[in-house]
């Protein structure tokens, strides 16, 4: 890490944005590093594939860079990035013409990189198989939801955003978040019954 990058690391998002718009490219690198993991995880769950998630995330940052000067600070950079990420993910998915019958897959080949942060390393190989299968089932269930429900449930139950944040990201009223989330969970509850029973 360069000294400049190190100094950037202590800056707020807003300051980083200012630096980027002033021509400091390194500051954008800091932004990327600061937000890439959370964004990636969200995108991954929305598109269901590591390869796609990487492409989408890269696209998100490129878009963000190109439009950064238009970011007016009305919301947090985090929210703004998430909005772009969600839009891009869903658009990407739409292009892929996924069908709702569940073609989402996980573990379809992570590119070389860091291992999952919280991927539990099971002691028992059979546990590992079970965990992968469970994740696949959950991911499929998420993938079977329509866009609005999938998005809200990922933002809440995976990213743990609060309702207000979700509302900001999706640009919908909090009441809508509430009802969509409830419905999404009801749908998931039905589709994940075997897991819940277990």
């Amino acid at each position, binding site marked *: 890490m360069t000294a400049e990058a190190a100094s950037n690391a202590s800056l707020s998002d807003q300051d980083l944005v200012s630096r980027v718009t002033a021509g400091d490219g390194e500051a954008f690198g800091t932004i990327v590093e600061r937000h890439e993991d959370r964004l990636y995880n969200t995108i991954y769950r929305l598109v269901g594939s590591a390869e796609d998630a990487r492409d989408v995330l890269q696209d998100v940052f490129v878009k963000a860079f190109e439009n950064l000067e238009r970011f007016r600070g009305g919301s947090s950079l985090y929210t703004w990035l998430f909005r772009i990420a969600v839009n891009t993910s869903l658009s990407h998915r739409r292009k892929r013409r996924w*069908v709702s019958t569940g073609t989402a897959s996980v573990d379809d080949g992570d590119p070389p990189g860091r291992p999952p942060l919280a991927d539990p390393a099971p002691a028992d190989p059979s546990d590992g198989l079970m965990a992968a299968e469970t994740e696949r089932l959950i*991911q499929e269930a998420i993938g079977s939801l329509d866009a609005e429900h999938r998005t809200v449930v990922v933002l809440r139950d995976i990213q743990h955003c609060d309702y207000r944040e979700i509302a900001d990201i999706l640009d919908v009223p909090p009441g809508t978040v509430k009802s969509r989330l409830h*419905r999404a969970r*009801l749908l998931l*509850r039905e589709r994940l019954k075997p897991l819940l029973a277990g």
Partner: protein
Amino acid sequence: MQCKQVHNHLSAYLDRELTAELASAVRHHLAGCPECRAMLEELRGTADLLGRLPVRAAPAGLADDVRREIERRMLTPQAADDAAMPERTLAAHRVRLWPRALAVAACLALAAGIGLVAYFGGGALDEPPAAGPGRVAHHDALEEANGRVAFRGGEEVTTGLRSHRAAGTGEVTGEPLAFGDDLRVLDETGDVAAVEGLDLDLRLKDAPTTASLNDMIVAAGDLSVDAYSFTDSLGRKASASDLASLAGADKSDYVWCMKEADEPRLRYGYFDVDGSRRLAGASVNVVTQNGDRGVAFDALDPGETHLAFGRPAQDAGAAPAEVLLGESMRGAQVAGADRSDVAGVEERLFEKKRGEALSTLGVDVARVAPEAAPSIPAPAEPPTDAAAEVPEDATDFADVEPDETAGTRVARTAPKEEAKAAGYRTAKAAPTGAPEPRPSRMGKAAEAARARPADPQVVQMTMNTVAVGDAPLGSLREVANDDNLRRASNQLVVRSPSRETANEDLVRLFARNGWRKLDESAKRNRGRRETPAKAPAPIKGPAPTGGGWGVPGGGAGGKVPEGLYYLASRNGEDLWVVLTTPDDLSRFATQVAQSRTLEVAEESSHPFQAVRYLQRQLARFEAEARRRNGTVDARMGGERAGAYGRGQTRIAAKGGAGAAPEAEETEREPARGIAGGTQVGTGQAVNGPQVETPPEAGQALAEAGRQAKKAEEDLFKKEPDAAQRPEPGPEAPGLVPQKDEEGEAGARRLARQEAAEEPEAEKPAARPAATAAKAAQGESSEAAAEQQALAQTQPAAVQQERFSLHRIPPNQVMLIVRVRSADGPPRAAEALQQEAETAEPAKTQEQATPAAKE
């Protein structure tokens, strides 16, 4: 608090997102309710499952990749475009999608000069924009348009907090649109409430291609290809044009669309048009390739129209039909239901009322015979019981934000009992304690419309054409049955303070167009020719052209009856069936737009929404002129008309300077040039020589006319040469005149040729209006002018002409005009009809009116 209410709060309770008071109430309930506790645990378990998913970290080196990509794009800007164009086939695919819808929409936008609403909520879409000549532009191009948006003029563009007004057609360059900005195109008055259609160009960056309306619609269509939702990604709000395009789509388009989507079955989708921008009356009735039927609903939230899909009964044996509705579907009026297919859905819909329950509701869609449909039982349920009957797992919307809670459309426009009379089970009233419908952001006119007394029968339509040329026609009374009414796409609903006045005005307009009354008795005999008891009286007033069909006075210029009308009142509703040519239909629509007594209602079919918009615009112009000058100022009206015509519609209208010498004329009918110039459907000016057409407007007019014509041909499947075909003889299907005259078909053809060769301003339809205008000069009151027009057109005299009909003439389409009024006994129209039938040829309006009142 009851279980059903608690259920709806459980997720938020789980997330600690309830208010303290509500959370306390839920907690209290949970303490004594094992069922709700169990549900809470299931929800908690579901959330926990997701929460335990492993967190995926971004791949290493992403930041470097991003940097490289950014550098690459900065160095080679073209690379971005190249990378963004992977889907050539999609463009072609879009072009094929819903050609009819495109044509109709284009017709509306071009010919009616609709202002528009384009709403891209949320953030910019990110599908690759097309650029360059010949490519189909996409509304996503906005993102790449560098803030340059081209308008047809007159609209105001709001980007975020900024707004720009387009002075005229051309490119407006304002502050660049920010990524994620909303784009709203407002009409001239800033009112987006009743704006229909779309007339917005997106000009692509550094590309000569301008995205057209069609592109926009096609782009919107792309949303539908999405197997998941008709909203765009994130469920953001589709624009009104999206609805419009769907409304114009027909079954085959949709089936095709579904196939393309490779979706075995569309399960769910809805349009979420921003609350104040809903396209009134839009509805759609579609069938997917596997037989699922889609029905559009206007939902409780005024901003949402839902599509529900169910499977007809014959398939239900194998797989129970399923109806999935949007979560915010909180009771609604069925907007476009084909009752025979969705009655069961409807029934359950309103029983359940709430979206949450419906989402998992298995519904066997009953196939109900059309005849039995209107008698769908509507249990009397006092509104106060509504809350108690909310299904258990329904969402409680009492605490939904005000923006999301508003009365149902039914609730606003028609009391429950009245809607029931129409055969619908209305949505229950908003649950007790729910907020009142919020004050709409709609314009005052729309508010006023909503405030009108309830419609006794609010029945909207699906977008199937009920009948087109050469279709067999038994009886127009049969045509005007419930089933067909729901199917009719040419349905004009007019409101009037007085039923009587409305009917009189309609008859007057019919007559002005030279339409003749159809003889019911002859019609009942299905083609049996009858001889008129007496020679019909010649038509007085302006000398019509042409002859034929045995119309008395034909030799002296009896007008070819391009239209026939018939009063088919039913169930106390005044309902007129008109058969006429698309051109005449367009002219008629224009006349209605100009009418001061007939207000086009939002329940009208989609094509007439443009008329409605136009009418409101006219009213605004008038109001503004009055406000400024205390009276209607001709120049003002002319200027506005000119500006409007040139800017928004590019269609001929009186320019400001040109209007000045015609002050008197304009005063009588302010801004008349607007309506004349924006004749829906054909784009032809019909007001005669007083309409001065600027060269550029003329070109636009011609273009609009061509497109509109094509649209109509597509819409009505009219053969292009239909007008040139020989008319069917007496033995052939079609109009059977009571009085045969040799060569009448030839005479008719001749008349048509004459009409076609006439300068536009000399067209027969323009003549009555022009003559009336002339006659009205010197008259101080509008009433006198209208009276004069009535006297000239002689509806009573027209009633003397009797025609029988067993097939719709090949080149004609059917229009259904429904009269809505707050007053008047049901027999008003019938009395008028009777009066008209027995009237003396010279009977005037004054004479007819008291009779009708009796």
